[in-house]
């Protein structure tokens, strides 16, 4: 028999603390859509996606009502488009992007990820063409998300790719200037990119994945925040235990949804991503969790330690609750999507440098950060190179999703609305790194003995 208090706890988490399943993402391989004629390839891609994920949204809704928990997003990730066999020009790739967008509309999903290239060691012609097409692709589509992996711990950092991405991000910001440079919110530059991540904008269906797969991303910053509040002034061991227990419960729901979705869709279950993903809604903030631990404001000294504790405890609690864990698993710290982060930036407590330090101990990286529109491509490259180095040196995923908001400067803000939120423009250091970036080539992979 179920205990009444347990039932009320679950109801309270959903009703008062914004517990939800953030996303059910179906991964779909597009290898078998290869071909010589771009029209045929687009048809194959459209057919494969709409056929494979036909029941994704209805099944998501069914589970939502049966289990009584919101499943916020239903999404699709596909094989990195640059790996779909054939020889394509940048214009061809834009056609594929439009096809993906059309498939997303047909399915009723809100994002489709995988307009991606993996270039950590070097470019194929297709990868280069795809990357060149990104600004236009993100301008002419609404739901397509793009990512580029420019580095890995084993390969080092492809600085040519970093240099290229600086320009691509600037161009994307310019082309989508009438819409707050929103194209950049759908473009992520990665190091050590996970191949089974269900979260956008970085999701794609990795090379070693089965034909189709179901990955689920959980959420629940509000639940963790409330649990910490209830625990009161306890010591760090008790605090970590409280977070672990809460993460366990949250993840169990994710596992349940993932297994049920997989069963009903007849698609293998991949992983549960144990991420604390904030939204701009009140009470759904990772920054507020950190502040709940005793920081006056997120971004002050002590923030990195608090975040490290949180991230570790979430993983420890979540790992036992799920049969397979993967993706980005950790705490997300996107600025525009987190009410607490926005407020910390606005009052000057949280700087870009502190955010960078925080990314050394949690998942993702410099995420959804708006910077002045006149920032040079070289400075953007410098920010990317710094952040990517943290990932490469620490054998972890890091990423950069910057929005150089066209025509805006410090003091302005960008408003995306919905889950993407709004972001105050952050101040950058103005010293040039142009000569450094211009060197080109690769930064060698780091040594992994002599750990210091």
């Amino acid at each position, binding site marked *: *028999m*179920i*205990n*009444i208090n*347990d*039932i*009320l*706890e*679950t*109801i309270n988490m959903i*009703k008062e603390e914004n517990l939800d399943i953030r996303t059910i993402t179906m991964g779909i391989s597009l290898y078998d859509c290869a071909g010589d004629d771009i029209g045929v390839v687009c048809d194959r891609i459209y057919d494969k996606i709409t056929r494979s994920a036909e029941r994704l949204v209805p099944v998501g809704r*069914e589970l939502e*009502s*049966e*289990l*009584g*928990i919101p499943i916020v997003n239903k999404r699709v990730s596909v094989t990195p488009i640059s790996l779909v066999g054939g020889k394509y020009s940048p214009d061809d790739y834009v056609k594929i992007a439009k096809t993906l967008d059309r498939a997303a509309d047909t399915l009723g999903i809100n994002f489709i990820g995988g307009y991606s290239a993996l270039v950590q060691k070097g470019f194929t012609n297709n990868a280069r063409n795809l990357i060149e097409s990104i600004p236009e692709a993100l301008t002419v589509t609404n739901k397509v998300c793009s990512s580029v992996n420019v580095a890995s711990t084993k390969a080092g950092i492809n600085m040519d790719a970093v240099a290229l991405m600086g320009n691509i991000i600037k161009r994307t910001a310019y082309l989508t200037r009438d819409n707050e440079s929103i194209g950049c919110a759908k473009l992520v530059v990665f190091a050590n990119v996970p191949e089974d991540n269900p979260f956008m904008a970085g999701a794609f269906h990795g090379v070693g994945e089965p034909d189709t797969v179901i990955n689920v991303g959980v959420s629940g910053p509000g639940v963790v925040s409330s649990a910490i509040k209830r625990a009161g002034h306890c010591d760090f061991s008790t605090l970590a235990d409280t977070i672990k227990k809460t993460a366990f*419960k949250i993840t*169990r*729901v994710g*596992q*349940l949804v993932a297994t*049920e979705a997989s069963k009903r869709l007849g698609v293998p279950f991949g992983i549960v991503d144990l991420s604390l993903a904030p939204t701009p809604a009140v009470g759904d903030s990772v920054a507020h969790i950190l502040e709940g631990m005793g920081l006056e404001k997120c971004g002050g000294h002590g923030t990195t330690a608090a975040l490290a504790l949180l991230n570790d405890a979430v993983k420890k609690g979540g790992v036992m609750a799920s049969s397979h864990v993967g993706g980005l698993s950790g705490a997300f710290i996107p600025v525009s999507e987190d009410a607490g982060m926005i407020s910390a930036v606005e009052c000057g407590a949280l700087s870009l440098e502190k955010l960078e330090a925080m990314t050394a101990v949690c998942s993702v990286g410099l995420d959804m950060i708006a910077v002045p529109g006149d920032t040079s491509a070289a400075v953007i490259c410098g920010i990317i190179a710094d952040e990517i180095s943290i990932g490469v040196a620490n054998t972890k995923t890091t990423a950069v999703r910057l929005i150089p908001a066209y025509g805006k400067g410090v003091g302005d803000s960008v408003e995306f609305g919905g889950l993407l939120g709004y972001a105050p423009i952050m101040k950058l250091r103005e010293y040039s790194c142009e000569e450094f970036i211009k060197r080109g080539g690769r930064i060698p992979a780091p040594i992994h003995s002599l750990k210091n």
Partner: protein
Amino acid sequence: MKAVITVVGHDAKGIIAKVSAKCAEAGANIIDISQSVLKEYFAMIMVIEIADLNCGFTEFANDLKALGEAENLDIRAMHETIFDAMHKI
């Protein structure tokens, strides 16, 4: 297959009767009821068997939700599995 109905809100007359009537109408068999009133707040938990439900579960849950809205209560029907998953190892 079991489901759990929870009713939370200000105490009022006839809440149990109304929810039970909906269950009977939909062919749900009530297995267990527990309720408590704390000050003016009312919380009821009902475990029901839904194998013989004569409508879809979504429809049933929506009906109860609508009843809740009309009575100014929060009424939810959820499959038992979510509670098992979260609270049993």
